[in-house]
């Protein structure tokens, strides 16, 4: 068992009755939403696609929220403490270009072919082999991710609040199972939008009050420089610049260069995640029309650009402001393994991922603290619900409907969807107890992404943009990409010197290794797909209609003003994105 679970005797914060009232109200509200929406989840379209009637705003906020779980919030706040503002790349170049690409390039294909899922698109484009391979790997990934979310929440509740791990897992999983099984995707989406507001309401005070205390951005920069110099950290000036230190691997705390960020993160990991991970794409597919489906990721991108304000900034503020309450000296956070070891607990050490709760406890008294904790719980449950609802859809349509019962009725699929939601939550609980023995949760998460998401992006991209890609090319490319990623991960675990080949530098930290591994397996997927496709016979053009660029007539949209045009708002978001890069260069 993870030492944190056994050793955490003192807690970071103590909840008052006011805080508990806010938390209990949240649980009551999400259950009420599930019960209310049950009546509107009677058909397959209702249960799995939320009736395809969501507005651009609802679909866009759910698209963003499905990714904005607490694992993400606390993990990236911790990473910004560890790596400085470089962590913001995961919200900027690691999200914005790919969200815009999804909106303006890929969404028409997904929407026009009316698929229920990404594996469903692969079936239409490459055949059932590819569909089954991707749906099994996706189903595996989602239940594992759901379990990780559940476990991470239990650990946080244990460390931060001292709650029993079994209590946290059972209460959260039963709540999620009830509201997703009752209301399906619509219920998950409603709760994701609610969670979006709770997260901002609960977390926005931290950067506002933190900047007041630090003396604004320039004061924050000066304090970080002073503290890191005092701690003899390498490159103390690099913690507040996003691009200027990426010329060389050794000039920044992450041990990465611009190529790893641009190509590994921006072009592969982010593109793969935001355009092919069905967990997020499913939210956009629920939009009521093509224009809403195009606008949804753009709305998501606009808010995604602002998330560093409530995630990255608190990490930097922790670096500048946190002091040991007993000695008055700098409070230095450490890796989780060290913080949770017996020696670490005896010394009262805190892990990087605890920076967000620490900052929350610093500024938020009773009431505000309850709202902040509710935001974290909502994030965890939303992440779990997102995975479970996506798992339910892929299982029902791409595994059960394709392999087990090809003649299933719509009513039968809804029934199966409800049951598999409960079963999926059950498997996730098992996974949560399984990962208690893992050394590092984030390592496990990133490994899963590189195994399944990076190669999938290669397959979907070629499927949509290259009509010469064949059924055999798609299947073997996806298989080769997935296996090569698992192979590289295993090589890295068995031989630590392999990092100089896999990540081009022996200074590469975990995140840098993930970026390069994703890049290599994506390239392998592309190369194998192209080579095999050129050796095999392609489908005739008439079978690729509505699936491939050049053969898909995009429906003409009714004439809308420029302020309702996805292209216009995409350009606005792109310009703001570029301005942010220059400001924090």
């Amino acid at each position, binding site marked *: 068992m993870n030492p944190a679970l056994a050793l955490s005797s003192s807690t970071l914060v103590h909840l008052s009755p006011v805080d508990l009232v806010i938390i209990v109200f949240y649980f009551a509200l999400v259950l009420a939403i599930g019960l209310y929406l049950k009546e509107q989840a009677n058909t397959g379209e209702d249960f799995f696609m939320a009736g395809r009637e*969501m507005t651009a705003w609802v679909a866009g906020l759910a698209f963003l929220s499905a990714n904005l779980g607490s694992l993400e919030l606390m993990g990236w706040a911790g990473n910004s403490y560890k790596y400085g503002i470089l962590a913001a790349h995961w919200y900027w170049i690691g999200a914005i270009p790919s969200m815009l690409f999804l909106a303006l390039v890929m969404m028409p294909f997904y929407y026009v072919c009316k698929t229920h899922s990404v594996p469903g698109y692969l079936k239409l484009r490459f055949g059932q082999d590819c569909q089954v391979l991707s749906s099994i790997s996706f189903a595996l990934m989602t239940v594992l991710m759901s379990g990780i979310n559940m476990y991470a929440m239990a650990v946080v509740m244990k460390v931060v609040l001292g709650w029993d791990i079994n209590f946290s897992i059972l209460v959260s999983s039963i709540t999620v199972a009830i509201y997703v099984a009752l209301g399906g995707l619509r219920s998950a989406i409603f709760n994701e939008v609610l969670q979006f507001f709770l997260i901002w309401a609960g977390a926005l005070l931290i950067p506002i*009050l933190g900047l007041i*205390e630090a003396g604004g951005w320039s004061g924050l920069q000066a304090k970080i420089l002073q503290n890191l110099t005092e701690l003899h950290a390498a490159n103390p000036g690099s913690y507040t610049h996003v691009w200027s230190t990426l010329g060389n691997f050794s000039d920044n705390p992450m041990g990465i260069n611009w190529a790893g960020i641009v190509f590994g993160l921006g072009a592969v990991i982010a593109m793969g995640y935001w355009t092919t991970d069905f967990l997020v794409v499913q939210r956009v597919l629920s939009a009521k029309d093509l224009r809403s489906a195009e606008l949804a990721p753009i709305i998501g991108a606009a808010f995604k650009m602002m998330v560093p304000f409530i995630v990255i900034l608190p990490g930097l503020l922790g670096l500048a402001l946190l002091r040991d309450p007993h000695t008055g000296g700098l409070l230095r956070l450490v890796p989780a393994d060290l913080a949770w070891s017996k020696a670490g607990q005896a010394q009262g050490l805190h892990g990087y991922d605890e920076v967000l709760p620490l900052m929350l406890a610093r500024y938020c008294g009773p009431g505000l603290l309850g709202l902040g904790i509710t935001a974290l719980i909502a994030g965890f449950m939303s992440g779990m619900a997102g995975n479970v609802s996506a798992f339910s859809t892929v299982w029902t349509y791409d595994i059960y409907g394709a392999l087990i019962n090809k003649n299933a009725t719509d009513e039968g699929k809804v029934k199966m969807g409800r049951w598999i939601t409960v079963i999926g939550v059950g498997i996730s609980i098992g996974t949560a107890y399984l990962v208690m023995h893992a050394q590092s949760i984030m390592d496990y998460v990133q490994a899963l992404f590189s195994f399944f998401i990076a190669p999938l992006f290669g397959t979907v991209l070629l499927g949509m943009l290259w009509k010469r890609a064949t059924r055999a090319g798609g299947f073997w490319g996806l298989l080769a990409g997935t296996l090569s990623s698992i192979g590289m991960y295993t090589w890295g675990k068995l031989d630590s010197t392999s990092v100089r080949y896999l990540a081009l530098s022996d200074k590469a930290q975990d995140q840098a290794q993930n970026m390069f591994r994703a890049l290599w397996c994506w390239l392998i997927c592309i190369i194998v797909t192209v080579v095999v496709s050129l050796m095999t016979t392609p489908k005739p053009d008439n079978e690729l209609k509505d699936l491939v660029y050049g053969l898909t007539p995009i429906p003409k949209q009714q004439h809308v003003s420029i302020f309702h045009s996805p292209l216009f708002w995409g350009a606005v978001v792109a310009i703001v994105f570029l301005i942010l890069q220059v400001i924090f260069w």
Partner: protein
Amino acid sequence: MKSGGSLSIWFFIGISLAFNGAVIFARGIYELMYPPAIQVVLYNLHANVWWGGILAILGVFFSLRFSPARERARMSGNS
């Protein structure tokens, strides 16, 4: 905004913000009258008062703007 029956998602969000904002605001007022022995950093800014107030106002606005009665009236007007 059609997204599930006569109760809009924005109505639920309004209820949530209004309730949480009211509770936080009330607690802030209580702390103004009876300051706690252990105070958070920047306690003097009384964040729970103004932040709770902002959330409550926003929540009441959403709840009224997307109330079931207004939604029903709007939907019957559209049909």
